[in-house]
């Protein structure tokens, strides 16, 4: 039944000019200069073809009404381009997309907020920007202020807001847009923990009402909790479209040894690269699951392209919702590595793992001379921790048994039956 389809995408593609961002902006002078330069070199058609790249190419998928779909991929894989095309901010170069129903897009929380205006004025402004009518905002106004938990500050200019208040108000307005189809780009990762949970609950309530949600995130934890299906993009192309578990596994395999998204090597040529990361349990078997309380060994294979004196090897452990849980550092542990060159490996054995059950990612970072410049930062793969009781991150980051002791007080004879 075609009536069930909320989003239908056929051969959708977007081509950009390489370096367009940095060049077009500038001034007319640069363009004239460029034009003269290319004239002198002779405008070769070959070079022109290389000037373009496809940020998204031949994307095909249907999303049924009420489906929640996660879009995953490394930075620059085309996730945001896809959302921008679907929200009509950018025009596709090829293909088509048909959207049935009212569409709300939240690519960034609070775009369009004006610093000088009060919370009340901004609520109406932002509401209109998102596509609500004034009457609609007026009707939902009290609920919005309630949801944002900002109370009396509603008549204060938002430039005096804390960043938390700012984001809460913006999200509250967006949350009341009440669309049939919602496009979200990383926006749930804002605010404090309590508010994040509120947002997640909200997204789930939308789901129950039959809204369709398309959700871009690096946060595998929220993808896992919200979506039954994922679309995995790699260099602009859809490489997987199906059940979340399978897609995430594929993504995790692919992202092994990839450069960490936050790292930008500015030196031009890399000094060192991590070539392999293996995780072994206490018996020496390669594994992806570590039992709580057991030690694990991490072996890091590297290739140094130049001699590096006294490098600092680090292994960061990130939980699936990107909470940084622990770091092991060779320098901090007073393990002196005089110099490395060429290929080799470094192994560390962790203390008993005290993290609660979840999926964790290793980040391998190598720094120059103790705590110097970062030479490389790569994702070293993921592992699960298995804890017998604490099977979710609602129990905090780590678990360590405490010593308990009860003290009897003389006069509490009837308290035995008291309870909630």
């Amino acid at each position: 039944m075609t009536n069930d389809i909320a989003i239908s995408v056929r051969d959708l593609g977007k081509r950009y000019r390489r370096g367009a961002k940095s060049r077009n902006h500038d001034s007319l002078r640069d363009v004239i200069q460029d034009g003269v330069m290319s004239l002198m070199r002779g405008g070769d058609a070959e070079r022109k073809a290389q000037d373009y790249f496809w940020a998204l190419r031949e994307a095909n998928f249907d999303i049924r009404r009420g489906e929640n779909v996660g879009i995953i991929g490394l930075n620059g894989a085309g996730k945001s381009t896809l959302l921008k095309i679907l929200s009509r901010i950018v025009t596709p170069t090829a293909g088509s997309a048909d959207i049935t129903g009212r569409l709300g897009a939240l690519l960034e929380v609070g775009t369009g907020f004006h610093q000088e205006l009060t919370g009340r004025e901004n609520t109406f402004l932002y509401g209109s920007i998102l596509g609500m009518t004034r009457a609609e905002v007026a009707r939902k106004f009290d609920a919005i202020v309630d949801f944002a938990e900002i109370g009396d500050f509603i008549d204060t200019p938002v430039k005096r807001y804390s960043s938390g208040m700012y984001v809460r108000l913006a999200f509250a307005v967006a949350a009341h847009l009440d669309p049939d189809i919602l496009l979200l780009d990383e926006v749930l990762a804002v605010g404090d923990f309590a508010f994040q949970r509120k947002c997640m609950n909200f997204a789930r309530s939308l789901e129950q009402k039959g809204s369709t949600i398309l959700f871009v995130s690096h946060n595998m934890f929220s993808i896992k909790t919200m979506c039954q299906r994922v679309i995995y993009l790699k260099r602009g192309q859809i490489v997987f479209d199906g059940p979340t578990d399978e897609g995430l596994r594929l993504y995790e395999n692919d992202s092994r040894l990839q450069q960490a998204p936050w790292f930008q090597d500015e030196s031009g040529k890399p000094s060192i690269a991590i070539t392999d990361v293996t995780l072994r349990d206490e018996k020496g078997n390669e594994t992806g699951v570590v039992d709580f309380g057991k030690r694990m060994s991490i072996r890091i294979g590297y290739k140094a392209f130049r001699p590096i004196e006294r490098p600092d090897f680090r292994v960061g452990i990130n939980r699936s919702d990107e909470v940084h849980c622990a770091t092991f550092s060779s320098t901090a542990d007073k393990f002196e590595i005089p110099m490395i060159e060429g290929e080799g490996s470094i192994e560390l054995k962790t203390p008993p793992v005290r993290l609660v059950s979840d999926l964790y990612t290793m980040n391998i970072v190598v720094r120059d001379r103790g705590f110097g410049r970062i030479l490389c930062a790569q994702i070293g793969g993921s592992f699960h921790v298995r804890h017998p009781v604490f099977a979710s991150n609602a129990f905090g980051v780590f678990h360590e048994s405490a010593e308990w002791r009860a003290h009897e007080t003389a006069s509490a004879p009837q308290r035995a039956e008291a309870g909630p």
Partner: protein
Amino acid sequence: MSDVAFDTAAARAEAAHHEVTHIRPDRGWLDLDLAAVWRYRELLLVLIMRDIQVLYKQAALGAAWAILQPLFAVVIFTVIFGYFVKMPSDGIPYPIFAFAAVLPWTYFAEATRRSATGMVDDAELVRKVYFPRLIMPLAKVCGPLLDFSIAFVVLLIMMLCYGIMPSWKMIVVPPLVILAGLLALSVGLWLGPINVRFRDIKHTVPFMLQIGMYAAPIVYPLSRVPEEWRTLYSLNPMVGVIDGFRWAVFGRGELNLEAIGLSCIVILVLLAGGLVFFRRMERSFADVI
């Protein structure tokens, strides 16, 4: 989530059938989709309101600037052209002669400046939110109408001070202001997309406006322009507007219909071309802004 009001799922499903958005790479040259602008008219109003609120909140003197700016120009013109140069002003007191022209010109200049650069000033919106981009120059052209209205009241007061009674001829003021607004919009439609690509426009506009001011009968009367050049001169659409404005205020002689007719034709051509150009260019705004 009890604090969020929702429609029922059934109502939602039914509404969803009515709204289908087709996203396609190309659009015909003449597909202007003005209906989309109409659907977004609330956003247009909200953006106009925002610009006004922000402008006056940031300035200590607030709305007084709407009066001070043209008044200042009038004082300077009166001293230089009225006193020193002894510029003839068709027998009208020079301050009011100048004010009647400075008023529509100030509106036109401000509307042009804002509509040409507005897209870049709101780049964040363009990059992250969809709306028919035409809304932006439209809002920028409407914003300064408030300043104009305030200053217009001052003109009326000044007229009374000089013993000039407003006549029925004032009814041509609104159409003339609309003409000036449409001209500013046309210029914005042409320059706005270029400004998105080349920020040079931002620096060029004030300069062009400066030249434009002396190419319009503001400090001197239209009668000082040699007869044989007058038609060519009137190709500047602001000539008809400003001359019409003076006629509305003082009511001397005939309304210069030839100049106004020429204005209308030039504006129509600029506007039609501008609309097509703008729609053609807007598809890449989010990519390059």
